[in-house]
């Protein structure tokens, strides 16, 4: 072995190299991990969307005549959409707040985001019950199957996001975040924005196009 002064050494009592903060610059490790995870989720929805487009192209008329008016965008679902979009704003406000070490502003905004997320889920569930009463089920031909599958998996991802926000809220309330250390907040907000973008696409596709 060359006794090279450039060689990297660990001394006896130094801890294993820190992983959470990239001191050499560049994107933080947990952020990169979350972005890659979001990429995989995009591909999951891509598979579902591909199935939707293919199914829709092969089944005319679409929507089928018995369901031609059932997906009305100007109903409770529009309120739910507005709430989800608003929650992305409050989420971003929370990120900006913690970046400037404004802990109170961060906590306020993250709580609002969390609550808005829960409200979205409740409105979605309520909307499902209305549609169910009007006769649209998972078994209502390809139309029903694709509708509930796409919106259902989106809802499941919102639920996962709500849990993430809950964990972030809890950790925030116990003072674990600062301007220098808040990777989890950045990561959770990236996920939350992703969930919102998917909804905007879904809502446009299912209700308008």
């Amino acid at each position, binding site marked *: *072995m*060359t006794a*090279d002064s*450039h*060689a*990297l*050494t*660990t001394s*006896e*009592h*130094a*801890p*294993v*190299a820190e*992983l959470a903060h*990239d001191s050499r610059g*560049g994107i933080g*490790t947990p952020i*990169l*991990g979350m972005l*890659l*995870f979001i*990429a*995989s*989720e995009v*591909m*999951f*929805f*891509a*598979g*579902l969307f*591909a*199935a939707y487009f*293919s*199914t829709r192209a*092969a*089944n005319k008329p679409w929507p089928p005549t018995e369901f031609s008016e059932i997906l009305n965008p100007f109903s409770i679902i529009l309120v739910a959409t507005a709430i989800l979009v608003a929650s992305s704003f409050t989420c971003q406000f929370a990120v900006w707040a913690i970046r400037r070490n404004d802990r109170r502003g961060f906590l306020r905004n993250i709580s609002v985001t969390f609550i808005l997320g829960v409200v979205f889920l409740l409105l979605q569930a309520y909307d499902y019950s209305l549609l169910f009463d009007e006769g649209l*089920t*998972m*078994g209502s*031909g*390809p139309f*029903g*199957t*694709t509708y509930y*599958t796409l919106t259902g*998996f989106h809802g499941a991802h919102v639920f996962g996001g709500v849990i993430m926000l809950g964990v972030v809220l809890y950790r925030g309330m116990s003072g674990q975040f600062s301007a220098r250390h808040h990777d989890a907040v950045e990561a959770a907000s990236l996920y939350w924005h992703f969930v919102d973008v998917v909804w905007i696409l879904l809502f446009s596709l299912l209700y308008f196009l």
Partner: protein
Amino acid sequence: MATHALSPVAAPAARGWLYGWLTTTDHKKIGIMYVVNSFIFFLIGGILALVVRTELAQPGLQFLTDEHVYNEMFTMHASIMIFLFVIPMLAGLGNYVVPLQIGAPDMAFPRINALSLWMLPLAGVLLVSSFFVGGAPAAGWTSYPPLSLDGPLRSPGAGQDLWIVSLILIGTSSILGAINFLVTIFKMRAPGMTLFRMPIMVWTVLVTSVLVLMATPVITSALVMLFIDRNYGGHFFDPVGGGSAVLYQNVFWFYSHPAVYVMILPAMGVISEVLPVFSRKPLFGYKAFIFATAGIGALGFSVWAHHMFTTGAVFLPFFSLLTFMIAVPTGVKMFNWVFTMFRGQLTFSTPLIFALGFLTMFLIGGINGAFSASVPVDFALHDTYWVVAHLHYVLFGGSVFGVFAGIYYWFPKMTGRMLGEGLGKIQFVIMFVGFNLTFFPMHMLGIQGMPRRIADYAGDAGWNDWNLAATIGGFLIAVSLLPFIWNVFVSLRSGKVAGDDPWEANTLEWATSSPPPPYNFDHLPEIRSERPLFDARHGRAEH
């Protein structure tokens, strides 16, 4: 909150050796457990193959008089081999080797690494349990609907659902592993290790991880849709309800074609580590090799419908052209390997011998695949034993021989002991002969008209002799595993002590003890090329 000083020296084993292994987040232990778990499923999948071959040795139904049971056998054989053996085995070798080769102390997310590992035996138990809850799935590992949907004469019962759930778990484990590999490779390389100084093994794991990340979620979506059709009255894939059977095939193969590159690229990485070391020359065309690997990864996403040429629902010229094109980067790699050996100084240790077996078998597998790229020829060959020959030449002759090359090469690093060379060579000879005896005749069977997935065949079709030969070969393969298993046990106990670098190798994992300490490295040599250890040994002038 109280803080505690961290110490790299582990606390004395107060809770026992087993607890240490079960709760570890050390990539080296996790990698070894991946390898052991995968090997167990290799044996289970192999026994299922022997059941299939025993039934097919002669025309007539000998002992599997219920054809449905035969269908379960090959369905489970393939599902276990693909999802519980090859993919995780290569992930496990990567798990062990990649952090060491880039000079990192561990993977980026060690706890998620452990989670990825433990999902596998759980998923395996779920899948195998299908035998005991009313029957294993029997619609082939491809599980095409409508056959894989619910209903009489289709796939009623829990078996197909357990298959779906098991595969979703395995897919999730893979995706988490891919995220781990990518973040580790991008963020935790030692100083001086630029991307174009990484070992090829790391590059192949990188490209494989991109494929896993982007393709696996698509099969998750297909499986989810199949589950909905089976259990919630969905209409994705059943034509009677307005669905499309071909839609499933498209979504399924969009993953399953890149999956075959997931199954071969890390094995190619192993070969690219072994050949230079045992030829005493660098890998010929290092950069071209990397671009070829990336090219295969990218092209691999564009050819999926070549599995569907006979459906009448595919834009044939596009997929045929791109399938032919994949031969070009694959050929580049083949030539790079051959010219690494050319004008080298070859030492025929067992890793090199398995690498040579890989080269010949993968060459045959690549060539017979080109036949299927030609659409009219594929009309004759699709769904016949020709395809069974092709897939085993690339997956066994390629991936499995590559796995054994990797095991013989890195066993000394993992355990501090050498595997016996004599037993290794005996394993190779029996396995090589057995493999070719099993699968070469399948070319003949396929082109002469024997379809796949049939429990029995007509005695007057002229297929009897080749089938018998294939069965004998299959049992030879099984026999070849005995010297291997014996070798492992004997070597663990009393194999030759390996030392840091028994092979006079080039890459960083050999710059630390065998086995390495928990944090991997006390010192790292200077990294100025893709062969840092070679440079340290011979000086830069000789590079």
